[in-house]
């Protein structure tokens, strides 16, 4: 473990030793342009907008540029940063603090500032992050981690199209196309289908191009898919599609609320895309890389998967037990059991625990190689819980019980209480799974062959996972509250 840590430190020191010179300037320029663009779109004063963009670009160039080693990492770091920008600047935090005792006023104020959130993300964050990421891509040399254009485009495009097909087939009964949800009728059905698949393909290809180096397993692919889905909701339905339809830009909370169903669609699509991409990528890696005897690990993948499933089931069971009081209190449990009653019987508890164990198995399967510390585990667990809130009570449960899924803001508001149950479940499941895994790993500590696996599990400093956690988790929770 210490050798691993030393290797990572050395790697990080090397990155730090290259002091960026152009990046702050580039960030400043892109930030100013972005700030001006945001001001123009929001029809506000240009000077404060330009200054805000300049400040963000400069700070990002100084402190985050080293981490923006590709357009994808740059984008994720900038999305997290621009969300913090929205919280801190435009007087939000201090304004909110002053209004803290008048919550209703403050909420209205936050809703009024929703366009600034969209502007910060798209006009300032995205160009600065992607711009510095492109610059970082030229600067950073990674001889052992070459970017495979073909693999990114083919795997991403395939995953995007497949995701669009599965998702379209899954919920499109009655000509419902989730990526276009909230946009009303298009002139023809073929036009609608074409647009649906064009968006799906675009998202898939850009996913592969941007994140090939960052995603490495199903869990991180789903996390990145979730974050990318949220980003695309801002970029697609709220921006590009309106412009493409010849409508004026409208970033208001009301418009956001109107296309809220599409947000859920984008999130679920992002998850499917992530899983599909990971599957294609994993097949590639399994067939051509891991099957090479030179890369052989001490334990075959089959045994590893089975053990993960077992630990995941146990962890999920414990997560289910811990979150059960919340599920009972919020009335989710009777719905799980398919009985519309406030009584919670043995059947509901049994079903809840069975579902918890099954979902825990998916955690074990998807996230088994993502965590190396309790903190990491809990963070991925929160995200896992959030994913299952969108996937479970928002989508699968109504689909199974009634055959229709309701992605309106009203439905989301009604389900908000159970969100915490899911977050608690995710965190507890992830932590318990981590403890199982750590106990097993510790028993192998004397075996030097395990150090390689450990090295793979430790996400090196500088990868954008923390920014993804902030962006996806904050907006995944905030948007249903803000737009409801």
């Amino acid at each position: 473990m210490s050798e691993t840590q030393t290797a990572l430190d050395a790697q990080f020191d090397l990155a730090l030793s290259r002091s960026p010179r152009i990046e702050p300037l580039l960030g400043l320029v892109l930030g100013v342009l972005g700030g001006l663009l945001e001001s123009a779109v929001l029809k506000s004063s240009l000077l404060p907008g330009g200054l805000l963009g300049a400040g963000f670009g400069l700070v990002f160039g100084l402190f985050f540029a080293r981490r923006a080693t590709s357009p994808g990492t740059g984008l994720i770091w900038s999305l997290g940063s621009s969300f913090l920008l929205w919280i801190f600047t435009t007087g939000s935090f201090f304004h909110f603090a002053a209004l803290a005792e008048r919550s209703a006023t403050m909420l209205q104020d936050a809703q009024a500032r929703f366009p600034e959130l969209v502007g910060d993300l798209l006009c300032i964050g995205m160009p600065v992050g992607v711009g510095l990421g492109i610059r970082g891509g030229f600067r950073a040399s990674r001889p052992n981690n070459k970017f495979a254009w073909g693999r990114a485009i083919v795997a991403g495009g395939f995953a995007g199209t497949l995701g669009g097909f599965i998702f379209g087939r899954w919920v499109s009964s009655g000509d419902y196309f989730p990526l276009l949800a909230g946009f009303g009728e298009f002139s023809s059905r073929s036009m609608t289908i074409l647009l649906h698949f064009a968006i799906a393909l675009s998202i898939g290809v850009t996913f592969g191009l941007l994140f090939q180096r960052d995603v490495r397993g199903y869990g991180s692919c789903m996390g990145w898919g979730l974050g990318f889905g949220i980003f695309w909701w801002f970029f697609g339905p709220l921006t590009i599609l309106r412009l493409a339809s010849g409508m004026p830009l409208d970033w208001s909370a009301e418009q956001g609320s109107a296309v809220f169903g599409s947000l859920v669609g984008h999130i679920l699509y992002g998850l499917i895309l992530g899983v599909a991409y990971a599957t294609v990528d994993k097949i590639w890696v399994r067939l051509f890389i891991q099957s090479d005897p030179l890369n052989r690990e001490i334990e075959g993948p089959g045994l590893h998967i089975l053990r993960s499933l077992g630990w995941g089931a146990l962890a999920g069971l414990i997560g289910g037990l811990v979150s059960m009081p919340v599920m009972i209190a919020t009335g989710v449990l009777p719905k799980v059991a398919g009985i519309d009653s406030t009584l919670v019987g043995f059947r509901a508890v049994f079903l809840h625990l069975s579902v918890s164990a099954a979902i825990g198995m998916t955690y074990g399967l998807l996230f088994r190689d993502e965590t190396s510390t309790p903190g990491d585990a809990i963070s991925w667990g929160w995200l896992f819980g959030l994913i299952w809130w969108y996937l479970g009570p928002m989508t699968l449960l109504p689909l199974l019980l009634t055959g229709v899924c309701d992605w309106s803001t009203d439905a989301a508001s009604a389900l908000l209480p159970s969100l915490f149950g899911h977050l608690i479940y995710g965190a507890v499941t992830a932590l318990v799974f981590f403890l199982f895994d750590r106990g097993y790993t510790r028993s192998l500590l004397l075996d030097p062959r395990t150090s390689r696996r450990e090295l793979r599990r430790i996400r090196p400093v500088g990868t954008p996972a923390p920014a993804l956690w902030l962006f996806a988790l904050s907006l995944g929770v905030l948007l249903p509250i803000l737009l409801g």
Partner: protein
Amino acid sequence: MNRSFRRASIGILSGAVASTSLIATLHYGVWSLILGVAIGAAYSAALRPTRRACADSLMAGGSLGVPLWGLISVIAVPLLSGQMPEWSAEQMRQHFPALVGWVVYGAFLGIIHQVLQDSAEHFWGPEAAPKASAVSVTKRIVILGGGFAGMRTAECLEEKFRGDFSVSIALVNETNALLFTPMLAEVAGSSLEPSHISTPLRSTLRRTEFIRGVVAEVDLEKRLVILRHDAGVRGASRPREVPYDHLIFALGSTSNYLGMTNIEKFAFNFKSLLDAIRIRNHVIEMFERADLEADPALQSSLLTFVIAGGGFAGVELAGALNDFAHGILADYPKLHPNQLNIVLVHSRDRILPELSESLARYAQEKMQSRGVSFRLNTRIADAQPGVVLLSDGEIHTETLVWTAGTAPNPLLKSLPLEKDKRGALLVDSTLALPGRLGLWAIGDCAAVTDAATGRPCPPTAQFALREAEVLASNIHAQLEGRSAREFHFDSLGALCVVGHQTACAELSVPFARSGFLHFSGLFAWLLWRGIYLAKLPGLERKIRVLMDWTIELFFPRDIVQTIALK
């Protein structure tokens, strides 16, 4: 500086500074500060310090704010105030200021914690490494033998001493794999691939040092195991010595030819994987030679296979060879089934003395109906090329397989230790050698007596595995100063395959009249396969064996000769 103290101090300080945002938005007064400090301490304890990762910590801390908001502001605080959690959509919107406050708190906490952590490293150096890595070995446990007893002992010791790296475990064995002997007959019968029933000891044992070698002697005074010196091997300049504090004899047994040198010379042994491969290849060789032979008498001699011993090994081998030989006749159209003769020679009046008489009779009748002939109450007296001499006649054959007797490993003869008449080491009820501190013995090479019944334990894998578990527990107890456990185990029963999809089963059942349930046929055979497949170590091996069995359902057995016989 103490690692925990340092982490706690940094966490508390950063939590206290970051809690200003909570004070501004939550209006909980001093509780905001206390909350901030407590979360800061927990945050610091849960994270592995990473140098100069301010941006990462800022984001990770900020993301922590969202769930903290839900858990504390929305759920915990109302509950502590005696109210229901405020988690309806409207109530949560009321808590919006707190959400902003928590995200800002998290972001501040992350970055301040990182700055303090880096400063502490700058002034006081990196955190002290955990003490566990500096532990030196003080006790050495050496296991001689990698059969069921030896390997299970190693597994149990690994489990017992999981967190204690002051104890080293080493296992010495002649081969680098555990042979799953219950399936050995199927290898001889060409049902299973040889390597599929062998589990590599190096892959299975993670903490145990595996040493492949033959034990030349054990120096009980100096407490050293001395391995046989192989002068032909480069780098082996002198015999290797393995020191021990605890030595476990789990050497198993070898074939006992009862002093008949001709039989030792001409008969096939049936103990190792190589023996099974040799028998399979020899059977095929006999068929090839018989196919070329014009003399019917010689053909008949070539196609006669004699198995000495009517215990489990002999019966299962006879059944497997009978199926194999009849199965491959289809590939030799010149040979007639009547020429084929599988003979089982046994010195008692019935086979399978380990099972009940009714089951033994069933097995014999079933095997006879499938073509196996029996010579009961008959002893093998001698063997010459082409003929096996019996106590009451002779059989013309080129094949004799010996399963009629076993003896403990010959190494034990050279040791000045107390043994029984069979030559097995005498152990007390805790499996220790009486009066010999740190010496233990289990399995076929030990004369173990059940502490509860006082009866000697049979030398079977079932008992060896349980003995191994008790032995590991007793060594662990001794090193911890606790008293040792006595060995007691009630047999679970026995299973024996007698031919194609047919087996005999005698299972221990608590409320049965005789204490055992007897049955036979297809169900017993399925049970045999299910139980032994489950007991076969390693998932990969299980899958391989399962595939072999499935392939066998659809394709004939392989008759490719894999090794040269001469």
